[in-house]
């Protein structure tokens, strides 16, 4: 059943309309961050460690939604900032982050892929190229002969992983540094894609 719920608007009385009070409040928050962080930076420069405060305290309240990203060692040491100094420090990736693809193997080392071309069809960037061959196992019938992904075109949407009926392709390598000096080198073939399986 549909009901109507009236949402109370916060009253805009004179104190709000004049802005100044709210501006001062906001400045209070940012100045607190500024001086707390400055103090921590100074302590860090002096070689000292701020007294056991977790970095979440620097955010001035509950670290909701951000705590899932553990600050790295140096950011923890600095304590005045949550910056991760990528690329000197490793990037912090979420558990479900989509990174470079890999192809899974069967126990005998052949690709699990059955060349159904579902991934090639669904791919919005059209960056997958598959050619098929007969599989010696009559229960499998088909398998990939070549399987290429052009990482230079891929948008890392993960549709290929969703589409695959036999779970032959995954995006969980944690590898997201894929630069190359030539476009040609951005194309990963089946051998390279199966390396981490």
């Amino acid at each position, binding site marked *: 059943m549909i009901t109507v719920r009236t949402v109370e608007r916060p009253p805009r009385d004179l104190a709000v309309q004049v802005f100044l009070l709210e501006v001062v409040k906001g400045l209070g928050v940012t100045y607190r961050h500024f001086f707390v962080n400055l103090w921590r930076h100074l302590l860090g420069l002096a070689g000292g460690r701020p007294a056991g405060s977790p970095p979440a305290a620097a955010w001035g309240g509950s670290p909701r939604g951000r705590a899932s990203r553990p600050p790295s060692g140096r950011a923890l040491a600095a304590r005045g900032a949550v*910056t991760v100094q990528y690329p000197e420090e490793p990037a912090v990736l979420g558990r479900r982050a989509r990174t470079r693809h890999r192809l899974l193997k069967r126990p005998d080392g052949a690709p699990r892929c059955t060349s159904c071309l579902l991934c090639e069809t669904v791919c919005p960037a059209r960056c997958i190229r598959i050619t098929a061959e007969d599989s010696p196992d009559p229960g499998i019938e088909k398998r990939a002969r070549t399987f290429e992904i052009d990482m230079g075109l891929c948008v890392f949407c993960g549709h290929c992983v969703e589409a695959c009926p036999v779970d032959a392709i995954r995006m969980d390598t944690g590898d997201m540094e894929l630069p190359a000096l030539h476009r040609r080198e951005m194309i990963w073939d089946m051998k390279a894609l199966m390396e981490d399986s």
Partner: protein
Amino acid sequence: MSILWVLVKLGAALGFGMSWAAFLGWVERKQSAVMQDRIGANRADILGFKLIGLFHTIADPIKLLTKEDFVPANVNKTFHAAAPALALGFPLLALAAFPFGGTFTVGGWTLSLQPLGSKVGLLYVLAMLAVGIHGVVMAGYASNSCYGLMGGLRGASQMLAYEVCLATTMAGAVFLYGTLDLAEAVRWQARMLGGWLPAWGIVFQPLGFVLFLVAGAALTKRTPFDLPEGESEIVGFHVEYSGMKFGMFMMTDLIESVVVCCLAATLFLGGWHAPFLPLDGLVGAAVMVGAFTAKVALVMFLLMQVRWTLPRFRFDQLLDLGWKGVLPAGLLNFFLTAWGIYLWR
């Protein structure tokens, strides 16, 4: 000798503005970083020394100077090139009118630390600030781009609204000091009330000071009043600019901020006056310039924090705030001041 001294002072005023602009680029990046729990600019280094990112004050201009200065085919070449110079030049000229210190005597010479003393110094500063907007409008017009034009027009109408407000908010102070001469205004403030309270403008004009900061911040076209630019909607009046010409527009905002801070320091914070410190001789000269710079830095610190704290206004809200908020409040302040002076006399 006196010509030479004036030239030295003018050069110093120019250096004051330019070094502030370079330094503020660093302050802006670092202050926003620290208050947002970030680290901020820390990559530029010389032989491995980073000096908390201070080398970015050198690296940024070098980068801007060496970038390609691309001039689109359809722009009006003359105006396109002249606009950044106008925008940057006039606020820099305004700096020449400020008393960076009073007068001091050394070796029989009595020297003033104000580059250009004038009976109407305040009007001169206001005029320079107002003329500076021509650069923005010209940039928008010459760009031959609707976005640039929109930015320029916004700049003009914002300028119109807040220049009036700025003048109104200062009217109380001017009435109090009875002069438009900036040096004279500081001299009025350079005394102590009851031996402990400096007679600075802010003591008599607290409302005027707050309103002045609002109008001043709006005048500098920086967030929350950065409507002439708007990366998310019209990009801004400098959409067709690149390289150092773009950099000059960025510097314009910063130097206008410096001018506004100088005005605040001069009219409301006692200018070069520093209580309980020697104000004559060479030491006195250093103290006066130091006090003035410190006050400018203090106001700048506040404006910078405001710039990184508040979200921006919508354009109609901006004009509403100016014409219906700051202007009447400024007039009220002026009226109260006049009334107070009448009763006190």
